[in-house]
């Protein structure tokens, strides 16, 4: 089998063709933007509260240090060493594993379609906050007046109130994507991440000043030490870390491929991992301070108002906004934060698909953006701006997360660690410029601890879904938009892997010019083998 598709000479500058982040700082902010998403704000606080409160800190940290960060570094090593989208990186790792990359691409495509819808809801609620449009019944308003959700069925009845913001979200995202890696994703992250941190910090301060905030924090942080002996609590910690860090489904592989070859990927990974957890802690404090206020205002215990996900954002928080002094400001900060966190995550999800299409077909950035973005946007509008959108969204989200991301991450990890035995080479790559160095400990965590952690999470999810239909939805909905979807994604992935690569694509291991130990201003050598020929005459020395 030919390992270099087509011509091997005269390739355009690889970095210029694919795009690159201009500095380590931009990469870190983009990676934080990807990791910090809706789940940090609306999932972590409740998961922590439900699983031991303050005691949850221990399993959470164990999961972060033994599975989350090691797995993050694995993604970084694969993308940074092989300098390609997920399919190209896997193909360069071993030709037969390319399908894993396309499986990840498929998952990202599906996630993008519904993730945009939630951002559209949050965008609309940012403006609803100004005049508390939900009135005295936030729940009735959300499901009735806003989403117009009827019976559980799939309809084509479009809801204009969802359609318009959804179109705006897609337009904004496609413009960002068309601008490219640095001018689009990088510049957006450079602006939005500091804005997000400032906006959420302001929200936390406002929430802490509300009466009852201390009761909310008391509920969140009071430790239940017996939880530490509970297997589901540990599974929840591993699940939270895993879903929160954007690992295992191509995002970090893609982003790492845009980083200068001499950057410290280990140090960068540690910063991204701890930044993500830092934001989660901030979110926990802000959300539970606000819930404490809500509980006190309603004369009930915090446990009775605590919730997560859509219930927290679109039902509990509107209630809080209606009751709190300067509630409109609180609402704009909360929903504005959701929009910003969502946009920076959505951009990273879409980039996985665009990057793969560009690598495979050698198209321009704008063409790839249209080829990927328009179908994704149309599908998103057709499925999720209708009166049945919330049901389809809920099912797709559950199954793609539990059995899409989890399974592909687990399979990828096992293939890289055990079938290809690539961890030693990857750790050597990370160690050239990375500090602290990774060694046998990292390899054990990545090949044993993280897979075992993910397997436990998967087993608990399967147990729940086999015991009872998810959320009581009808079987046809769970089958069509759940089980069949998650089975179809790997099949489509391995079919796409059979398509030929663009002419000149290097598929035999790391591409020329990717060696992090090579001199900065290496000039092309006379060595005739492509593997030893640097792609660029200049390099990333000035990028830091």
């Amino acid at each position, binding site marked *: 089998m030919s390992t270099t598709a087509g011509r091997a000479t005269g390739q355009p500058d690889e970095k210029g063709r694919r795009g690159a982040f201009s500095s380590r700082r931009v990469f870190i902010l983009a990676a934080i933007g990807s990791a910090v998403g809706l789940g940090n704000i609306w999932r972590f606080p409740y998961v922590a509260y439900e699983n031991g409160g303050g*005691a949850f800190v221990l399993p959470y940290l164990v999961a972060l240090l033994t599975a989350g960060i090691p797995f993050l570094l694995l993604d970084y090593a694969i993308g940074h060493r092989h300098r390609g989208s997920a399919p190209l990186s896997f193909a360069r790792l071993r030709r037969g594993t390319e399908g894993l990359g396309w499986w990840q691409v498929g998952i990202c495509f599906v996630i993008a379609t519904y993730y945009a819808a939630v951002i559209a809801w949050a965008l609309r609620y940012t403006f609803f906050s100004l005049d508390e449009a939900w009135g005295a019944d936030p729940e009735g308003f959300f499901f009735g007046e806003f989403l117009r959700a009827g019976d559980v069925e799939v309809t084509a009845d479009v809801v204009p109130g969802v359609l318009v913001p959804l179109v705006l979200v897609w337009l904004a995202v496609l413009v960002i994507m068309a601008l490219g890696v640095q001018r689009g994703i990088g510049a957006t992250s450079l602006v939005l991440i500091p804005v997000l941190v400032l906006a959420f910090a302001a929200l936390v301060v406002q929430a802490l000043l509300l009466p009852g905030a201390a009761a909310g924090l008391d509920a969140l942080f*009071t430790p239940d030490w017996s939880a530490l002996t509970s297997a589901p609590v540990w599974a929840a910690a591993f699940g939270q870390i895993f879903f929160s860090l954007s690992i295992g489904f191509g995002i970090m592989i893609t982003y790492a491929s845009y980083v200068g070859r001499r950057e410290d990927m280990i140090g960068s990974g540690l910063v991204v991992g701890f930044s993500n957890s830092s934001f989660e802690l901030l979110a926990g404090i802000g959300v539970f301070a606000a819930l404490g206020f809500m509980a006190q205002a309603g004369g009930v215990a915090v446990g009775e108002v605590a919730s997560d996900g859509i219930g927290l954002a679109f039902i509990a928080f509107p209630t809080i906004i209606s009751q709190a002094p300067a509630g409109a400001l609180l609402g704009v900060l909360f929903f504005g934060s959701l929009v910003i966190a969502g946009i920076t995550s959505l951009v990273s999800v879409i980039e996985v698909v665009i990057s793969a299409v560009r690598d495979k077909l050698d198209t321009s950035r704008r063409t790839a953006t249209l080829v990927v973005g328009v179908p994704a946007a149309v599908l998103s509008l057709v499925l999720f701006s209708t009166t049945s959108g919330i049901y389809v969204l809920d099912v797709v989200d559950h199954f793609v997360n539990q059995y899409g991301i989890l399974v592909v991450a687990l399979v990828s990890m096992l293939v890289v660690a055990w079938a290809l035995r690539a961890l030693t080479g990857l750790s050597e790559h990370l160690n050239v410029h990375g500090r602290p160095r990774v060694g046998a400990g990292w390899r054990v965590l990545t090949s044993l601890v993280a897979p075992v952690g993910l397997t436990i999470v998967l087993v608990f999810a399967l147990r729940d879904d086999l015991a009872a239909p998810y959320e009581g939805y009808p079987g046809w909905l769970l089958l069509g938009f759940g089980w069949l979807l998650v089975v179809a994604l790997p099949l489509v992935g391995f079919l796409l892997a059979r398509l030929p690569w663009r002419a000149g694509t290097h598929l035999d291991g790391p591409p020329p010019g990717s060696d992090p130990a090579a001199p900065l201003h290496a000039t092309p050598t006379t060595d005739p083998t492509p593997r030893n020929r640097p792609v660029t005459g200049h390099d990333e*020395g000035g990028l830091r």
Partner: protein
Amino acid sequence: MSTAAIVMMVVAMIVIWGGLGLTIASLLRHGAVENRAEEPRRNR
């Protein structure tokens, strides 16, 4: 707030936010070392 809750909140803040501070400091320090190590090669 109960004493146990305050203690756990402070512990979480110190470990997670402190961990972030340490990792940023480590990255900056290592980056500076790398830059200094590169200078002779660039000036050669």
